[in-house]
């Protein structure tokens, strides 16, 4: 079971990132974080970017951790591939943070 979880680790990070971004988005809109300035941007967008970057970092960490296994068994190789897919999916899923209005 541990091997299967390790194999899915990159996608688990994507799932965490997706839930985190959606939760931060909802919470920020409900609490009015968009109206709180934080430098050049709002506290809401800052929180979202921070969460997004954190998850991308975690995904990269998983990929680095899986790097030695990239030429191992099929399960190991798949784990490494899925880690890369997880990072790419996290990056793409979070792009609307930079392009779309948050709360309307």
């Amino acid at each position, binding site marked *: *079971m541990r*091997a*299967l979880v390790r*194999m*899915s680790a990159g*996608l*688990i990070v*994507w*799932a965490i990132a*997706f839930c985190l*971004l*959606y*939760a931060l*988005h*909802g*919470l920020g*809109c*409900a609490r009015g974080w968009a109206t709180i300035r934080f430098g050049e941007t709002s506290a809401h967008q800052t929180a979202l970017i921070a969460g997004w970057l954190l998850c991308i970092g975690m995904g990269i960490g998983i990929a680095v951790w899986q790097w030695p296994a990239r030429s191992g*068994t*099929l*399960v190991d*190789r*798949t784990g490494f*591939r*899925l880690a890369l*897919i997880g990072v790419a*999916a996290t990056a*793409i*899923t*979070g*792009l*609307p*943070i930079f*392009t*779309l*209005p*948050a*709360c*309307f």
Partner: protein
Amino acid sequence: MKALKLHQELTAIWRNAPGWRGTLCSVNHSDIGKRFIVGAFAFFAIGGVLAMLIRAQLATPASAFVGPEVYNQLFTMHGSIMMFLFAIPMFEGLALYLLPKMLGARDMAYPRLSALGWWCYLFGGSILIVAMLAGVAPDAGWFLYPPLSGKQWTPGINSDVWLLGITFVEISAMCAAIEIAVSILRLRAPGMRIDRMPLFAWYLLATAAMMLFGFPPLILGSILLEIERAFGWPFYTPALGGSPLLWQHLFWLFGHPEVYIIFLPAAGAVSTILPVMARTRILAYGALVAAVMALAFLSFGLWVHHMFTTGIPHMALGFFSAASTLVAIPTAVQVFAWIGTLWSGRPQMKLPMLYLIGFFVVFVLGGLTGVMLAVVPFDQQAHDTAFVTAHLHYVLVGGFVFPMLAAAYYWLPHFTGRERVMQLGETAFWLIFVGFNLTFFMMHLTGLLGMPRRIDTYSDAMGWTWLNLLSSVGSFVMAFGFALFTIDVGLQIWLGRHHRRNPWHAGTLEWAMAIPAPAYNFASLPQVAGRDPLYDQPDLGVALARGEGWLGATRHGWRETLAVDMVTGEPDHIVILPGNSWLPIATAGVLAGFFLAMLAGLYWIAPLFLVGVGAIGWRWAWTNGAREDYGTLPAGQGVALPPSTEALGTTGWWGSVFALAASATLFASLLFGYAFLWTVAPDWPPPQLIARTVLEPSLALLGAVLAIVAVRRVGPDGRTALAVAAGGQIALILALVLLVVLRLPSPASHAYAATGAVVAAYAIFHATLAATMLAFARARIASGHIGGARLGELRIVRLWSDHAAGAGVVATLLLALPGWIA
């Protein structure tokens, strides 16, 4: 002679009793699988007739064929039947029948659970059909959105029929998910490493995992809506802090993964059949595994794309739009792997191949319109039009029905042991293919011209008349095709000549046995050294029949198969499976009593049936196990292994892990609902919060700690520790009951209190279950079932007890916190 003797001995152990008793008590996976398939096809036929009635109504403008009340029932029942009573049970049946045979096992991990699933499916589905015949079928659309489905707008029992009937059927889906996952992970032939598994098993493993996490939100949503309708607790009523959007979230949290839950097993069938038809091996096995895993995860990030027009902020829509387009990539990886396989092989245009080509054409078109609908501005234009209906039919018929038809023709010789009689299948294909495209391609056009879904009539002035007429003609052409398919299958079953083994020259293990398959599958289990064992060893079936593999002898009348290490496929222990039993049908019958009592509004009688289920469950668990240690037993190939009663990491333990994962998902969905209402719904914060208290939370915490600590001190003679742990669970129950009764406002007053009461009910239910299991373990120690090396049951009880304690603490904190911080 040895093969014949072994066959006779194994048949005596594995066969059903004669007559009706044998039919009702059978737990054999081949029987149950075939029943699911036949049942699903029967429901498909009913759903198909409803579709023809819908098309008859829409064939001409201002039709008076049926009125709006009947029409609403027609489209609601068509959708509900096809999704819940056809698609999922059909693949469950195929999985139950094929998996043990492909994995090199003699049965699924929990034969009685398979049978329970079948009876729940049959009884639950029958409730819906009987309601339809009585004229009280659900009529609020297959996704039953409140407030339309609420008590105010649907005062009759129509919505209750859906909520209770479908929830009953979902029990079978949850049984299947646990069963499939554990069987794939543990019950394989020795040597079948996880990377040697047939791709069909990978697809089903992903599907089972998705079901474990995808179905609980819908089950929760249905429970909440039924409670709202029955008792007036306002989860979806905005005036009292509820939100209809909560239903949409819970429904589509299930509903979108559901599309992939349906597609993936069919894609597994494609990945199995296609290389055989192309006379080669599948290309890019590893990439396909990665694509399947990616789909299993990414498909959970799409649910809001069904809610693009509900007013959700743009950024949130962007997250889901991005995920919706991303999911096309792993799907495309599979399509390219299949094309590459065809390219590298020497394809034969046999009948299954013809249906696979139909799948390619239709599914790719459906996928392309899916990418269109994933883009928010387009979806906002096409939402709730016939374009969406056309898209979903292209995806589901293309992605499921065509592969299942290919699978039917591919595996029919296995089911029947017979050859085809006439060439009706080819004609059936062309009728279905042309009829389907005529029906649904036109619906893209009517949708783009603005025709809404679910309307029962339209004016000639709208300009949709000839397109609708062509759609209706196409639907009848398609129906003739399915009728011809049915006749073709019937002819093969009753008139076909006996077929030789492995007619397609396939490499997977299900063909390493006589056809139709004997009740025990393999006289002895194979040792596997590659992904296509029959290509490596073409006469494997004969060697296995002679008993030259694992477990090639009988003992004690036991139904035996092997459990292996999940990753390496090394043999681990001998699983002793239960025999035929009346327990599954009895459990389903008592459950039917519960659901019917709820439907009839007999709310005080309904819990008695649950007590009955508990009593049967006790008996069910009691019939497992042994009162003595056997030590290691010869398993063949010179290896001795312990029986499952003396092993650790048994299928029972893993089943509990997956059952608890599903239960925890339901609890997490409930917590999501609580947070969602608190942040999004109107009329929050609630007018009255829970009264501030320290007493009950302290009691709950004490009970949880007691349960967690005591259950760890339980040994083979630990009856006192078990009693203390049960005491802890009872303290937890008492604390939660007091919190709800004494401190929480009335659950009917506001969604806050209603949600809080359900959170408490979840924890109380699990603590009651844990206390019962602890009492059971105490009785098992007294009876001698637990003792010596037979400690597996204690590990399982500990799992459930820990989960109950954890859920109890979370529920208590969630209930008490608002009172403390207010």
